[in-house]
C-alpha cells in the first residue's frame, strides 16, 4: 500500500493541482510575477501537460486527453487505441471544452422565491432542499430522483443515497433510450440490453434506420469500425430520409416511412431457410411471408434492389443487420427490433458481431413510459421532493403531455445541471454542477469498462460535483459519510488497485475488466409470439416529417455550445439556427428557395422554419433535426415507450417571410469541375509545363493525404481545428454575409443520383501557390519545408492572396475576434493572436511541427514519421487524414502519395498542392 502522496501523485492530482494553481499569467506581456512558492515538481511553466480523461458530451464515453497550459485545458483530443472510440474524438467531444468555458454556464446555486429564480448560496439552497426532504419524509411522501444515464461510481453512490434520502431513483431518462431494441432482446433472449456491435467484421452490412455515424449508441467507435470493414464489404442503409449514415453507406435504400417491418419480414423469410442458424419450427410457422412484390410496393424499394440485398445477405460470410433509431422510433418499432434481432440470430451474427453479454449497459435506462408514469404520479400528488439531474425531460416529452405543468405536483423541485434549460427553468432550486473536467469521477459506460475523469482546471464558478451534493445532503440528514466525493472515489481505488494497476489506470484513463455473461439462447415461444404480433399494414401515403437526430448536438444536449453551430451541418452546410430540409422537387412544388420560411403544422402543433434544399432527399419527405424544435411534436409508441419520430401528414405552407440563411455551400454540385475526378484516375502523371525552376526542400517536405472513402463528413476535424488554432467563431450574422472563418471545411457534393461525396478542403500548401507572389509584403511565402506560411504580424490585409487562391481557404478577420469571458481563456498560447485586418489560414498546425522539432532536438534525434499529428488528423474518427514528411521515403505518406488513384484538386492549375487525395488504399492505423 503506497503512501498518500505517491498515491495522489500517481493519479496526477499534483500535476493537476499545479494546473489548478495557475502559475504564470498567460498573455500579460507587461509584467512578471514571482509566485510565493515554486510549482510542484514535474511542472515547467510554459510547457503543456496532457491528461487522460473521458468525454461526457454523450453517453458513449469515448476516451479524451486534455492538454493543459498555464493551468487551463486548451485542447481536447482522442485517446489512441481507446476501447470505445478507437482513438478519434467527434465534433461534440471537441466542443466539450466550450461547455467548460461557456459564458452562460450556471455560476452558482439559484433558488426560486416569488416567481423568479435568484442567486443563492450553497448553504441556503442545500438547507432548503434538506428541510424539504425532511418534511416529505415526515409526510411519508417519497421523493423521486430523475437523472440522465448514470454509471460507475456515481451510480453506486446514487443507488445507496436515494433510499437514504427517502427518494426513489427512477429509471434513467435518455431521449435516445433504444427501448425497442432492449425490449425485443429482452423478450427473445432474456437480455434486455443494447448489444455491443462489431461493425468492422461484416462483409455484408444492412443498417435500417440506425445512424451508426451520428448518434447510434457509440458513433465514433462504430464509424471507425465501419470504415475499417473488409475489402469488398457492401453496406446497405435503409431509411426514409437522407442521413449522414445513409450518405456514407455503399448503397442507400429510400424506404417509405413505417415500412421497415415489410423489408425485415421479407428478408427474414428470404434468408431463414438457408440461414446458418436455423430457426425453431414454431418460429418459422409464425413467420410473416410478404411477397417480394408486396414488399416492393409497400417499401418503395425496387424489386431488383430487394433481390440483390436478399441474395447478398444470404450469401454473406459475416452478415450483420442492425435496426434502430428512426426505424424503431415508430409504431411497430418493437416488430422492427424483433425482426432485426431474429435476423441477427438466424444469420449467426448474434454472439459474433452482436454481443449481448458484453452489452452497452443500458439496462437501467427507462423510456417515455417511465416518464409518463412519473407524470401521472405527480398529478396524483404522490411525489415528494423531485430531483432532476443532467436530463431535460420537459424538452423531450411529447408536447401533448404538458409535463412542465405537471412538475408542480412535487413538494419541491430540485434541478442539477450546468446550463439553464427548459427543465431547470421549472425548478425551485437549481444546483450548478461542475464540469467533468473540474471534478473527479469514474464512469462505466459499458459493461466491463471503467473510465477515469480527473480535474483539469479549478472550477470557474461556485459549482459542485453531483456526488458532493448527495453526500452533503446525507450529511445534513444526520448520516456520517465520506468527507468528499473525491475521498470516496480514492478510497474505492485504493481498495481496488495496487500500485502498478493504478499507474496503468491513471496513465490510460481507462481499465477493462473481464465480463462473463451466460450465452444467450432464443426463446422460441416468445419469438413466435412476437412474430404473430407483427402487423404488416401498408404505410400511410402522403408527406412525412422526419425528426432526425443531429450529429452536431446529439439529442440537443450540446445545442447550447456555439462551436457546434459554427461548424456546419454535414449534409446541408447550414450553420446557425433551425431549418427544415426540403427535397428539390417539393421545393419546386411549394415554390420555396433556400431561406424561405415554411410553417409546419401537425394537428395543434406548429413551428416556423426556414427551408433548405437537400438534393439527396426523397420527394414528400421533410427533415427537421429534432433538437431544433421548440417542443417535441411526436407521440409515444406505447409498446416500447419510444418517441415517434416519423410523423405522417404534416401541413406545410409558406409564411412569405425569408431571407439570407446561414449556410456555407455555394453550390451542392461539383459543376462538372472534377474536384473529385470520376472515375478516379491519376491525371497525366508527366511533369506539367512550367517556366519556373524546381525549388528544393532540403530537410522536410510536409505533406498530407486524405482518403475521401474514409471521410464521413462528420466535421470533427473542423471542430478540432477551431479549438487548436483559436479560429474566430463569428456567429450567424457573419455567416449570412459569407464570412465564416473555418480553416478546414468539408464540402458535400451531391451527384445526380443523390449520392454524396465529402471533400475536406484545407490550405493545400501549394508548391507554386498563387496566393504567395501577390502578397506585397511577403506575409505569405513558401518555406523550405514545403509549408505555405502566413506571417500574421507581417500581413497588412490586402486580401489579394485570398482572391487568387483557387481553393478559397484563406480567411480574413473582418473584425477583431472577441470571445466573451471566460471563453477567452480557451486559447492556444503557442499561436499569436490575430486582430482585425489580418488574413489567416491553415499551416498544417505549424506550431505542432515546431514543438516536435523542439522535442527531437532535445533528444538529439530527427523527427519521427507520425510524430507530427495535426489537430484535424488526430481527431478524425476514421483516420482519413495522414500527415508526414514526403522526404522520408519510408513514411506512410510517401506510400500513399505514390499510390495509384491519388490525385490533387485542380491539378490542371499547376499549383502543385501538398494535399493529396485518394479513395481507399490507405490502411488507417494511428
Amino acid at each position, binding site marked *: 500500500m503506497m503512501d498518500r502522496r505517491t498515491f495522489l501523485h500517481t493519479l496526477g492530482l499534483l500535476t493537476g493541482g499545479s494546473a489548478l494553481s495557475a502559475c504564470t499569467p498567460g498573455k500579460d506581456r507587461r509584467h512578471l510575477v514571482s509566485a510565493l512558492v515554486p510549482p510542484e515538481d514535474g511542472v515547467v511553466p510554459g510547457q503543456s501537460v496532457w491528461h487522460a480523461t473521458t468525454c461526457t458530451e454523450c453517453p458513449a464515453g469515448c476516451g479524451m486527453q486534455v492538454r493543459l497550459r498555464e493551468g487551463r485545458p486548451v485542447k481536447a483530443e482522442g485517446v489512441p487505441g481507446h476501447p470505445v472510440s478507437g482513438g478519434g474524438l467527434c465534433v461534440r467531444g471537441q466542443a466539450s471544452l466550450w461547455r467548460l468555458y461557456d459564458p452562460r454556464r450556471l455560476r452558482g446555486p439559484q433558488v426560486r422565491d416569488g416567481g423568479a429564480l435568484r442567486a443563492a448560496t450553497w448553504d441556503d439552497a442545500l438547507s432548503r432542499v434538506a428541510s424539504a426532504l425532511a418534511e416529505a419524509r415526515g409526510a411519508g411522501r417519497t421523493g423521486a430522483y430523475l437523472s440522465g444515464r448514470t454509471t460507475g461510481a456515481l451510480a453506486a453512490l446514487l443507488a445507496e443515497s436515494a433510499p437514504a434520502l427517502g427518494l426513489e431513483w427512477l429509471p434513467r431518462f435518455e431521449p435516445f433510450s433504444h427501448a425497442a431494441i432492449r425490449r425485443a432482446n429482452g423478450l427473445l433472449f432474456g437480455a434486455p440490453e443494447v448489444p455491443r456491435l462489431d461493425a468492422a467484421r461484416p462483409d455484408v452490412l444492412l443498417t435500417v434506420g440506425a445512424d451508426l455515424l451520428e448518434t447510434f449508441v457509440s458513433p465514433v467507435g462504430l464509424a471507425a469500425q465501419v470504415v475499417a470493414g473488409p475489402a469488398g464489404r457492401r453496406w446497405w442503409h435503409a431509411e426514409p430520409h437522407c442521413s449522414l449514415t445513409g450518405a456514407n453507406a455503399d448503397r442507400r435504400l429510400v424506404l417509405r416511412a413505417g415500412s421497415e417491418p415489410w423489408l425485415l419480414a421479407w428478408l427474414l423469410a428470404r434468408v431463414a431457410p438457408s440461414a446458418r442458424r436455423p430457426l425453431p419450427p414454431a418460429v418459422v410457422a409464425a413467420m410473416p411471408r410478404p411477397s417480394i412484390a408486396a414488399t416492393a410496393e409497400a417499401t418503395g424499394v425496387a424489386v431488383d434492389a430487394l433481390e440483390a440485398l436478399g441474395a447478398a445477405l444470404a450469401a454473406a460470410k459475416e452478415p450483420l443487420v442492425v435496426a434502430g433509431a428512426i426505424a424503431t422510433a415508430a409504431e411497430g418499432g418493437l416488430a422492427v427490433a424483433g425482426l432485426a434481432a431474429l435476423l441477427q440470430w438466424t444469420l449467426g451474427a448474434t454472439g459474433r458481431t452482436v454481443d449481448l453479454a458484453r452489452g452497452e449497459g443500458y439496462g437501467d435506462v427507462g423510456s417515455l413510459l417511465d416518464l409518463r408514469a412519473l407524470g401521472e404520479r405527480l398529478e396524483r400528488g404522490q411525489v415528494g421532493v423531485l430531483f432532476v439531474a443532467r436530463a431535460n425531460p420537459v424538452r423531450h416529452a411529447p408536447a401533448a403531455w404538458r409535463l412542465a405543468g405537471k412538475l408542480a405536483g412535487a413538494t419541491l423541485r430540485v434541478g442539477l445541471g450546468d446550463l439553464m434549460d427548459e427543465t431547470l427553468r421549472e425548478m425551485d432550486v437549481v444546483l450548478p454542477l461542475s464540469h467533468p473536467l473540474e471534478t473527479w469521477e469514474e464512469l462505466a459506460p459499458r459493461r466491463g469498462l471503467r473510465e477515469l475523469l480527473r480535474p483539469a482546471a479549478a472550477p470557474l464558478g461556485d459549482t459542485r460535483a453531483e456526488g458532493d451534493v448527495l453526500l452533503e445532503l446525507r450529511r445534513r440528514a444526520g448520516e456520517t459519510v465520506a468527507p468528499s466525493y473525491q475521498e470516496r472515489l480514492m478510497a474505492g481505488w485504493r481498495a481496488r488497485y495496487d500500485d502498478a494497476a493504478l499507474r496503468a489506470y491513471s496513465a490510460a484513463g481507462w481499465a477493462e475488466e473481464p465480463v462473463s455473461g451466460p450465452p444467450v439462447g432464443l426463446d422460441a415461444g416468445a419469438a413466435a409470439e412476437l412474430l404473430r404480433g407483427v402487423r404488416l399494414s401498408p404505410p400511410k401515403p402522403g408527406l412525412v416529417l422526419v425528426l432526425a437526430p443531429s450529429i452536431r448536438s446529439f439529442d440537443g444536449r450540446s445545442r447550447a455550445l456555439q462551436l457546434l453551430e459554427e461548424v456546419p451541418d454535414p449534409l446541408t452546410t447550414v450553420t446557425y439556427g433551425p431549418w427544415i430540409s426540403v427535397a428539390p422537387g417539393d421545393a419546386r412544388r411549394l415554390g420555396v428557395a433556400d431561406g424561405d420560411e415554411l410553417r409546419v403544422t401537425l394537428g395543434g402543433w406548429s413551428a416556423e422554419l426556414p427551408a433548405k434544399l437537400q438534393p439527396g432527399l426523397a420527394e414528400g419527405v421533410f427533415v427537421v433535426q429534432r433538437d431544433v424544435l421548440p417542443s417535441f411534436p411526436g407521440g409515444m409508441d406505447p409498446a416500447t415507450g419510444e418517441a415517434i419520430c416519423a410523423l405522417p401528414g404534416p401541413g406545410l405552407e409558406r409564411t412569405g417571410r425569408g431571407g439570407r440563411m446561414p449556410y456555407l455551400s455555394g453550390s451542392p454540385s461539383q459543376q462538372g469541375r472534377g474536384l473529385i475526378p470520376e472515375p478516379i484516375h491519376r491525371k497525366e502523371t508527366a511533369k506539367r509545363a512550367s517556366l519556373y525552376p524546381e525549388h528544393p526542400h532540403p530537410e522536410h517536405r510536409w505533406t498530407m493525404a486524405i482518403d475521401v472513402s474514409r471521410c464521413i463528413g462528420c466535421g470533427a476535424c473542423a471542430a478540432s481545428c477551431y479549438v487548436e488554432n483559436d479560429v474566430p467563431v463569428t456567429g450567424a450574422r457573419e455567416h449570412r454575409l459569407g464570412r465564416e472563418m473555418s480553416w478546414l471545411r468539408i464540402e458535400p457534393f451531391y451527384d445526380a443520383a443523390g449520392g454524396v461525396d465529402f471533400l475536406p478542403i484545407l490550405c493545400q500548401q501549394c508548391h507554386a501557390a498563387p496566393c*504567395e507572389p501577390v502578397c506585397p509584403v511577403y506575409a505569405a511565402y513558401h518555406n523550405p519545408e514545403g509549408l505555405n506560411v502566413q506571417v500574421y504580424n507581417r500581413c497588412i490585409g490586402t486580401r489579394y492572396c485570398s482572391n487568387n487562391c483557387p481553393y478559397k481557404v484563406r480567411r480574413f478577420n473582418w473584425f477583431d475576434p472577441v470571445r466573451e469571458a471566460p471563453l477567452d481563456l480557451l486559447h492556444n498560447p503557442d499561436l499569436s493572436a490575430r486582430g482585425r485586418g489580418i488574413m489567416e489560414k491553415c499551416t498544417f498546425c505549424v506550431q505542432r511541427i515546431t514543438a516536435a522539432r523542439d522535442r527531437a532536438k532535445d533528444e538529439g534525434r530527427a523527427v519521427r514519421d507520425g510524430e507530427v499529428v495535426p489537430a484535424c488528423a488526430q481527431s478524425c474518427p476514421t483516420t482519413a487524414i495522414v500527415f508526414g514528411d514526403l522526404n522520408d521515403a519510408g513514411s506512410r505518406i510517401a506510400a500513399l502519395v505514390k499510390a495509384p488513384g491519388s490525385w490533387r484538386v485542380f491539378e490542371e492549375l499547376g499549383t502543385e498542392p501538398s494535399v493529396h487525395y485518394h479513395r481507399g488504399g490507405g490502411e488507417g492505423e494511428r
Partner: protein
Amino acid sequence: MTRLEFDGREEFLARLRALVEAGTPPERIRLQMPFEVAEAAEILGERPGAVRFFALAGALAGFGTGLALTIYSVVSFPLRVGGKPIVSLPPFLLIGYLLTILFGSLGAFAGFLLLARMPSPRGLAADAELADRFVIVVEGEEGR
C-alpha cells in the same frame, strides 16, 4: 544697344533674319518672346540644348536603380513565393522601367532649371519685365 519690339511673329522673324543676314553676330542678340518660336533658334543657328543629356543620364540612373533595388532586396533576404525564381526579372524590369521614366523626367526638369538659370533672382525682382510682345535686343555698338 538697340531694342526692337514687335506685336506679330512674322515681322519679328523677318527682322531677326535680316539682322543675322546683315552679319550681326548671334551671340550679341538677346530675344524675348511671349511664346515659343522654334524658327528663332534656327535663325540664330543654335544647337538643341543640353537638356537631353540630363534626361538620358536620369533615365539610365533610374533603370540601374530599379534593377539594383529589386535584385538586392531578394538576394539579401531570399524568400520563395509561388515557386517563382528568387531573382524574377520580368517584374523587376517593370520597376526598372518605371524608375527610368521617373528619374528621366526629373533629370530633364533639373537640367532645364540649371540651363535656363531658374529660379532667376533677376526674374523674381519686382520690376522684372516679362515679354508680352517680341523683343530683340542687340547688344554692343549701335544698330543702324
